[in-house]
């Protein structure tokens, strides 16, 4: 038994990878429900594994798993510390809650003969995201990043009821995503040229003596820009709004909650663990490039959201703003700021997961979502809208929600650095979030339903239960904050500390 548990770090990636081709076999029986159930099983397996890993890391410290028993740095190493154990939990947890929600939604949005392939691609996407998070090998990160990206282009292109705009959204994402990933590989090439290693721990050891090397500086620039494209940091966010708007609801939930978060994790890992503060302009880039971009992202995203009439697009723009908050936490580069960033990675996954799930419920009943089509739905779909409003409160950052916790820590972090002028900007950013949430509340509760619309029923329980579980999490982790704050704090200490 103990032997089996020892191999969980590889199983959490290998099982979804192998089950993807197995999932195709369901085509022969044309058994859509079985394919869905298979995906559900795999998601839950990954979720249980990640809980086990997080527990193990909390109790016994870092896990280092050597693939094929080849010793690192020659062999590939899966290295799990508190940060990636936490991100693994986020990815697999969102997947485990999104798939039960997904069956009815996918049935409605995707043509029957494509559904099995849809689940297959979904499993590949899950594999990629988990792989990026768990691996301790830099080139491995690129390979898994491309597995997850390629499958997410396919998933986005499927579109809600084959909306043709999903195709162009996916195409633009493909071009920009590939440019980003290629920049990342160029950067790795420079680092490999100088150090001769790809293992992350080994890289960071060897880079400490190479602070003045021009190739390392060039590699740094390429890697950071490539990752910023994947993170969708303003002004490299242009692929994001259309992708989230026209993607099938299940994919909007999954990608909005996890994909950019995993890229942010890789960015954190490279900024603080691989490069450390080995040369002077790393703190400079954080303060003079990342911080202004984060502030611009918050304002651009929030103001952009206010002007949208399409609801999913509105929340996509709000995602751009929320990424701004996370990057601001990173830019502070003190323990509290990083705690806020790691906390917000988790909290924003909960918030946007719940919001896009509510949007998925609305698409299920209404189809096209605009501020006009949802008029009067507050009375007709009370449970869905109550959930949407509660998740919106969390997005704004009302006390007792998770959104409040991360913003609170962000403010504390700013105060520690003494950057007082930024504090009003954060408050204004939150007020802008009130404005765009109010647009939706006003349309849903204070307007009469359009004359030409048939009465709408509340969505079935199968959709409401996952939605309310996520909304419940928003409040549970907003009140019971010990666990998440403890993990985030320790993660921040690991990132800033010199010890491995």
């Amino acid at each position, binding site marked *: 038994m103990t032997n089996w548990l020892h191999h969980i770090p590889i199983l959490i990636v290998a099982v979804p990878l192998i089950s993807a081709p197995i999932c195709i076999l369901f085509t022969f029986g044309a058994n859509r429900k079985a394919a869905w159930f298979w995906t559900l099983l795999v998601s839950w397996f990954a979720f249980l594994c990640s809980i086990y890993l997080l527990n193990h890391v909390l109790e016994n410290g870092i896990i280092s798993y050597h693939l094929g028993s080849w010793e690192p740095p020659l062999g590939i190493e899966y290295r799990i510390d508190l940060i990636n154990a936490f991100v693994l939990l986020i990815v697999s947890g969102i997947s485990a809650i999104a798939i039960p929600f997904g069956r009815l939604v996918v049935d409605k949005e995707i043509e029957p003969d494509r559904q099995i392939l849809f689940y297959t691609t979904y499993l590949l996407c899950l594999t990629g995201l988990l792989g990026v998070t768990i691996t301790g090998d830099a080139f491995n990160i*690129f390979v898994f990043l*491309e597995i997850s990206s390629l499958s997410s282009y396919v998933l986005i292109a499927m579109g809600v009821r084959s909306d043709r705009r999903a195709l*162009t959204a996916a*195409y633009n994402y493909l*071009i920009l995503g590939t*440019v980003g*990933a290629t920049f990342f590989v*160029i950067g790795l090439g420079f680092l490999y040229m100088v150090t001769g290693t790809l293992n992350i721990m080994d890289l960071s050891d060897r880079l400490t003596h190479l602070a003045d090397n021009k190739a390392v500086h060039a590699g740094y620039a390429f890697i950071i820009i490539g990752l910023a494209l994947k993170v969708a940091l303003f002004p490299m966010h242009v692929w994001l709004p259309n992708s989230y708007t026209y993607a099938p609801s299940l994919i909007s939930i999954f990608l909005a909650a996890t994909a950019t978060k995993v890229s942010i994790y890789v960015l954190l890992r490279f900024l603080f663990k691989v490069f450390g503060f080995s040369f002077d302009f790393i703190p400079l880039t954080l303060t003079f490039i990342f911080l202004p971009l984060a502030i611009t992202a918050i304002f651009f995203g929030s103001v952009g959201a206010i002007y949208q009439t399409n609801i999913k697009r509105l929340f996509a723009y709000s995602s751009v703003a929320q990424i701004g908050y996370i990057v601001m936490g990173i830019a502070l580069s003190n323990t509290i700021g990083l705690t806020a960033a790691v906390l917000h990675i988790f909290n924003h996954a909960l918030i946007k997961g719940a919001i896009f799930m509510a949007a998925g419920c609305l698409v299920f009943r209404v189809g096209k979502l605009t501020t006009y*089509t949802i008029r009067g739905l507050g009375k007709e779909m009370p449970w869905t809208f109550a959930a949407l409003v509660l998740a919106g409160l969390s997005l704004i950052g009302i006390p007792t929600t998770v959104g409040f916790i991360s913003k609170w820590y962000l403010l504390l972090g700013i105060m520690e650095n003494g950057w007082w002028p930024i504090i009003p900007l954060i408050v204004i950013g939150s007020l802008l979030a009130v404005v765009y949430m109010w647009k939706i509340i006003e349309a849903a509760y204070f307007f009469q339903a359009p004359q030409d619309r048939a009465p709408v029923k509340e969505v079935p329980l199968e959709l409401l239960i996952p939605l309310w579980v996520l909304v419940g999490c928003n409040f549970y982790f907003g009140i019971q904050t010990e666990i998440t704050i403890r993990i985030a704090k320790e993660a921040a200490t690991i990132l800033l500390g010199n010890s491995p």
Partner: protein
Amino acid sequence: MLEAIFNHYNYWLIIFLMMTGLYIVVSRGNLIKKIVGLNIFQTSVFLLYITIGKVNDGTAPILTGKSEIFSNPLPHVLILTAIVVGISTTALGLALVVRIRESYGTIEEEDILVSEGHQTEMELNKIQP
């Protein structure tokens, strides 16, 4: 100066290809040309890796007892993986272009944007009297 260029001509070639590819991606409105540009861009990275693996007078790393200097095989292995990724990206990109052509009737970015603008506007007009 000239010496620096000629001794490192492979790097100059790579930079030239890299910039050409990136420029095509940014400047062309034709969706297929963009993918061609992306391919050139990726190929330049393959060449970069292969270049750094080469050791002067080195041979393939096969233990025959005759040679002592070997080229580094690892970059080649890495690039085999990257080539696979590149091919899948190209295939997927071209497949998307086919689908875009089927539903928009064009592969020029400007025409697609106009046609998308009309669609969004019509949706708003239809539901917003």
